């Protein structure tokens, strides 16, 4: 990565997303149903980005959505699914099972060691695990050696420097200093290892206000900042909002019904339909829906209620 020193890095979603070029390797922040940069990813789909290589840990609707629109060619994540909520990810499955994308499944510690190698400016890091599994078959780029200190076998995993880290976080300032609230998942590893970092944030605050929050990302690692409230929807971004289970339910059923249904009922309506992120927010239910997603703050009963109806299906 380089050093980005302009005072004002505020951009539109479209400008930020255009930093991602066809064929690049992207690292998507957040994980599972938490703090995924959905507004930026929808913009990537709208801009028709192609042939991307996605790397990361455990993900869900973010990678599944990119699969549905043919944006990704290589998937190097450790998990893509909807856990016990909905089970397997339909668009991801179709992309893998049709051979349209290359399956380069990875594992959490392996990918962290590869990002660390890039972060430390060294060509590789050693790993003791992975041996005895079939991940070595999927990754001819890993090398094995006999350790010169222990004489035991080791796997050497090469440095991995994504072209662009795409993240959504709670707070930032115009210069690009960021405050990410935990779980940080792999965001800090992506930020340090990647050549470019584009961040959408729930709220842009003054640098003085951010200082009082004890930021955890210095501005010079960040190339663009986009203020996109609810930019992680339908995933969660506490302390602002829980994830939108009813939206995810309809997403899942549309995806289950097949690619055409998904294109017509989901992509057309929620990705290509809205002319802006604001319009997207009205489409998904506007302020009533957003207030409901914020109601987790009202106590355990209100919080729990967000996870009850409608029932998710089991794949």
């Amino acid at each position, binding site marked *: 990565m380089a050093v980005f020193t302009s005072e004002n890095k505020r951009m539109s979603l479209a400008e930020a997303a255009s930093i991602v070029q066809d064929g690049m390797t992207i690292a998507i922040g*957040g994980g599972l149903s*938490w703090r995924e940069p959905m507004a930026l990813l929808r913009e990537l789909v709208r801009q028709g980005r192609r042939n991307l290589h996605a790397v990361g840990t455990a993900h869900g609707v973010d990678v599944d959505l990119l699969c549905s629109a043919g944006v990704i060619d290589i998937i190097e994540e*450790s998990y893509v699914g909807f856990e016990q909520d909905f089970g397997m990810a339909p668009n991801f499955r179709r992309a893998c099972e049709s051979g349209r994308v290359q399956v380069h499944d990875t594992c*959490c*510690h392996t990918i962290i060691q590869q990002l660390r190698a890039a972060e430390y400016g060294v060509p590789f890091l050693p790993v003791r695990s992975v041996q*005895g599994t079939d991940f070595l078959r999927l990754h001819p780029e890993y090398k094995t050696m006999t350790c010169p200190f222990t004489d035991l076998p080791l796997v050497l995993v090469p440095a991995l420097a994504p072209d662009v880290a795409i993240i959504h976080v709670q707070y930032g300032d115009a210069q690009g200093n960021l405050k990410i609230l935990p*779980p940080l998942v792999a965001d800090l590893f992506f930020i340090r290892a990647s050549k470019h970092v584009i961040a959408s944030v729930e709220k842009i605050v003054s640098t003085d206000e951010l200082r009082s929050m004890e930021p955890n990302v210095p501005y010079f690692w960040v190339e663009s900042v986009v203020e996109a409230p609810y930019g992680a929807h339908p995933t*969660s971004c506490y302390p602002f909002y829980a994830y939108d289970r009813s939206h995810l339910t309809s997403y899942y059923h549309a995806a289950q019904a097949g690619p055409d249904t998904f294109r017509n009922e989901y992509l057309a309506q929620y990705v290509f339909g809205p002319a802006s992120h604001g319009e997207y927010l009205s489409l998904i239910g506007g302020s009533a829906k957003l207030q409901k997603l914020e109601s987790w703050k009202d106590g355990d009963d209100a919080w729990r209620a967000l996870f009850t109806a409608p029932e998710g299906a089991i794949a």
Partner: protein
Amino acid sequence: MNAEQITYATLTEVMIYQAARTIQDGELVFHGYGSPVPTLAMLLAKRTHASHMVHVEGATYGINPDPPFLPPTSNDWSLEQGSVMAIGISDLFDIAARGDMGRMFLSGVQVDRHGNLNVTAIGDPDIPRVKLPGSGGGCNLSGDVQHITIWTTGHRALTNKAGKRQFRFVKHIDFISSIGHVSRDGISRQALGLRGGGPDWVVTELGVFDFDPVTHVLRLRALYPDTSVQDVLDNTEFEPVIASEVSIVPLPTPEHVALIRRFDPLRTHQREFKSTDLSRCFDL
């Protein structure tokens, strides 16, 4: 609900109790995300026989959380409630890699005789017949963790439309996502330079298993009150070892059951079970 009113335990609760019993006091224990059964087993153990265990939550990495409920997704703040702090994703994996993780829970869509697990792909991994979600951290952890409890709610082999039995405990595993006791090439964990001891317990809806100390083959140790050795043989594609004495699993106390029901008011863990198993109950 308080313990006095509790007269029965469901199979799911009895199975959670079996998983909890594999936890030793004082060890650092981890479950993967999307794993309500182990999550509940850990919450239960910490509040009963293993008060000094370190509970690391599956995706938030919260330490010793006391969640108000179990949501159906693992990176949710509700699963961090009550923790004094959370560690980072790298801390968790580094702890295991340096040998400080006592136990973790792993599952698989295919399980072979040596405890190798497949959660990656059915068929050719390059163009899979069924692409499974993936192993998360299981591949690395299976090599590093001191002890592993394998759990599955899908031991029972169903018959597909073509009339073919769909075994979860298979003779041939299509992809080794996490290593058991012996690799595909017949190499032992030790020879591979792995630190962890591998899986020592396997808890399913049909019984409780360990591994034969000599052959490292799955061995039946205990059945539920309503399952038989024949059920296990019928639903296991390979020939498991049958222990000289096969016992009946101990049932949880009403206090155990009350805790489990308090932890999971949404009954999130039931989503992992077949409806036939959800109806199984045992009087206490």
